[in-house]
């Protein structure tokens, strides 16, 4: 039961992060929100594994964390390179 409620609460956090990602306003706000969304997703998956009673699949959460991190780094790199070439961000 408590896992269920933790799941729901984490979903709320994810939803709030999503709102920030939709709203922006600057590109960095969005990246921040996406990053936060990603980390909370990792936690959600960890808790969800316990909720369904099969916590052996935490590998997925690890992959999410990895992909999320690389994604943020990639976005930053590309924002940087576009701004350098003078196209301007957001």
């Amino acid at each position, binding site marked *: 039961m408590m896992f269920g409620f933790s799941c729901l609460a984490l979903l709320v956090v994810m939803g709030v992060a999503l709102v920030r990602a939709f709203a922006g306003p600057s590109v960095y706000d969005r990246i921040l929100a996406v990053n936060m969304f990603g980390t909370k997703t990792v936690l959600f998956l960890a808790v969800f594994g316990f909720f*369904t*009673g*099969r916590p052996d*699949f935490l590998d997925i959460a690890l992959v999410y964390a990895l992909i999320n991190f690389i994604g943020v780094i990639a976005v930053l790199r590309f924002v940087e390179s576009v701004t350098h070439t003078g196209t301007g961000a957001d």
Partner: protein
Amino acid sequence: MNIDFVGLYNYWVVIFLMMVGFYTVIAYDNLVKKVVGLNIFQTAVFMMYISASKVDGGSVPIYSESIELYSNPLPHVLILTAIVVGVAITALALALIIRIKEAYGTINEDDIIRMDLEEDARRDKL
């Protein structure tokens, strides 16, 4: 709230996502956005398959002695293949977009069509 509602809700959202993705593909002129729309469209179809594979009270189809009921593994396999097909198409489409940008200087479909028509008109004069 009964499970029937949840089931229909899944399918309805899937249909909604398909329509959003499909609309993005055919209504927007920006080629990158078309590709994103195509991905949304495909992911929606994946969701349909996976929704169908779920069994109430079932578990992940990895054998364990304590578990009786498993969800259906076959749609998972099909969708694994379909995801790979999706990324292959995305990669190819993006490579085409890069070449189009280099050849036309734009990735806006309207502009590209206009440039082609102008070129036709020039050739007619020859």
